[in-house]
């Protein structure tokens, strides 16, 4: 085919006419920005009016790994048909976040960096160390819905809590509340840091999960704020942290496996917390504290729901994974058994809230806490069965679960 014909035919996908008398920085930017939008082998046409610019444009073609397919000159100027000779991007056919679609790939594309799913990846992009890039180990079918729910159920410790309405309570009761709040805030730090720790390892390709974990982190921040503020609302303030709680949280914090952590934190830990929060909703001495705990529980339920669906899918795909999870609980137990596991300050405070501080009331409160522990155990077993565990194993795991609840 005559080279001239190439100009006549509709062979090119973009066309520019450079009228300026030099190849300006602006034109250089425009030409450079054109290249990524073209595929290897695609043609574009450029006409320049001045000879000096034609020298420069030919130079641009040379240094930008393109080649001249055809040239022509007439009174109007110089025309070039240029071919891009390299592939700069891997195109994506996926949509990004739309609240409906799921990531289609079982493994995130290798060069998928900090970008939304659906973006076209440049081939010279750096390789991020996203260790968690397999859908099976991350994804839960409900994650997009949970993200939507999280957005709709945001609350504010400023506007949703009437801090001024907290009554002056008996100092013993107030102290018990402050102790419970201290313990809750400690545990919420754990629930904030752990998703944070894994977040940076998850490929952004699974962006709904990344965004959902983002909501978890903010949920926990809000809980930490609200529990701390409740403790400090009156004169008594934050109380004692305990080694028992810290050792339990530490043993969770150092777990390196996301699947194990998801089970330990969301299913066993936060699951158990739902019962604890129910208990506090029932026995908290004032409506403001009840409201804080009620709002927090709603958030925690979402976190548990992610864990349940996530763990269930993995266990269904391979029931042998139950043994893997049991191993995580067992090895944690070995560490925890080295010392007293129970946070006695917490349990005592719960007894006071549930029964009272005199001998009779405390004994009643103690009984109610014992019943709470029993209920926690039963619900743990129920949740595990929901995830596909057999009852016997679920009971064993529940028995081995930390006495710190989380």
């Amino acid at each position, binding site marked *: 085919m005559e080279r001239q014909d190439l100009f006549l035919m509709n062979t090119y996908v973009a066309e520019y006419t450079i009228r300026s*008398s*030099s*190849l*300006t*920085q602006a034109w*250089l930017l425009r030409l450079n920005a054109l290249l990524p939008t073209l595929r290897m082998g695609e043609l574009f046409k450029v006409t320049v009016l001045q*000879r*000096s610019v034609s*020298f*420069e444009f*030919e*130079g*641009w073609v*040379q*240094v930008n*790994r393109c080649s001249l397919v055809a040239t022509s000159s007439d009174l109007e100027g110089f025309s070039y048909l240029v071919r891009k*000779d*390299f592939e700069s991007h891997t195109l994506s056919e996926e949509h990004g976040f739309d609240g409906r679609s799921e990531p289609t790939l079982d493994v995130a594309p*290798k*060069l998928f960096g900090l970008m939304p799913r659906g973006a076209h990846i440049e*081939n*010279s*992009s*750096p*390789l991020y160390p996203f260790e968690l890039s397999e859908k099976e180990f991350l994804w839960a079918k409900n994650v997009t819905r949970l993200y939507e729910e999280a957005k709709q159920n945001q609350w504010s410790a400023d506007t949703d809590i009437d801090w001024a309405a907290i009554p002056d309570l008996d100092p013993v009761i107030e102290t018990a509340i402050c102790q419970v709040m201290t313990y809750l805030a400690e545990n919420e730090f754990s629930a904030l840091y752990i998703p944070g720790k894994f977040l940076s390892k998850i490929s952004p390709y699974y962006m709904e999960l990344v965004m959902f974990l983002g909501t978890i982190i903010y949920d926990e921040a809000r809980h930490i704020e609200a529990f701390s503020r409740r403790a400090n609302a009156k004169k008594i303030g934050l109380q004692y942290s305990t080694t028992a709680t810290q050792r339990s949280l530490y043993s969770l914090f150092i777990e390196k496996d996301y699947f194990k952590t998801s089970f330990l934190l969301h299913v066993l830990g936060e699951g158990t917390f739902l019962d604890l929060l129910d208990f506090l909703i029932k026995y908290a001495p004032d409506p403001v504290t009840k409201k804080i705990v009620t709002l927090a529980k709603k958030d925690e339920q979402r976190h548990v729901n992610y864990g349940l669906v996530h763990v269930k899918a993995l266990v269904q795909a391979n029931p042998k994974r139950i043994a893997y999870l049991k191993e995580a609980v067992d090895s944690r137990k070995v560490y925890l058994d080295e010392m007293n596991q129970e946070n006695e300050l917490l349990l005592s405070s719960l007894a006071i809230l549930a029964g009272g501080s005199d001998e009779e009331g405390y004994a009643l409160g103690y009984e109610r806490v014992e019943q709470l522990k029993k209920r926690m155990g039963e619900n743990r077993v129920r949740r595990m069965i929901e995830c596909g565990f057999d009852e016997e194993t679920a009971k064993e795991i529940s028995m081995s679960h930390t006495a710190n609840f989380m």
Partner: protein
Amino acid sequence: MASLMVGVVAYDPKVVLIWEIIRDYAKEKKFDLDYVLFSNYETQVQALLDKKVDLAWNTNVAWLRTKKRAPFAEALLMRDSDVDFTSMFIAHEDSNIQTLEDLKNKRVCFGSGDSAQAFILPAYYLKEQGLEPNRDYTMNRVDSDLGKHGDTGRSEYDILEKLKNNEYDAIALATSTWMRMIELGLSGSSLRPFYKSRGYSHCNFTNITPNASYVNEFVEFMLGMDTQRSDITKMMEMEALSKWVKTGEYELQGYNELEQAMEWLNLF
């Protein structure tokens, strides 16, 4: 020691990054390759002639000097960007300089004396037009980074400043450097290229041991690089190529003019 040593001139810190990528890739492909850095091409050429290295990544000037002393030397491989490399002459827009002939009786400044693109070839283009230096025009030069054969481009930036200060009427440089100058906003609004050269050949991998066993292996290794990998893409971007090409007849002819120019300037 690796079975194949490649000599490379360290004209920029990125040279190390480029060759670390190539070396890692070679290791992965079980190809036993290492590189040695030289501070200048003269030493590298000597090391090649002394067989202290097996191959040298040479400029066109270094290649021709090697070939002069080792007639069996062969150019194996180049970057696609080394084929049809070009130079330019730049002058002020309002200077009435439109062609090389217009440089008669003018002050022309070139880059380093060992740079094919900024001095040797441009000066030869003027001679071909009948313009002898310091008879028909004033020849000046800025010798920056001698030994690097113009790789750093520094002399070209130096003479650009001098042109802007009207110390000279025209300068010569590589087209690729001019592109970089535009990008950096250094090209000035009143400067224009008025001449662009024919294409000539630039760097190549030089071998002086005929029928050496590593030659085919090396060429196949380089040509077979997986351009879909981000480390390779990155290396290629830093080294400004989209693919390696074998040095064929056409590419070899691209050194002829430079050879004549170097003879004329007594640069061998």
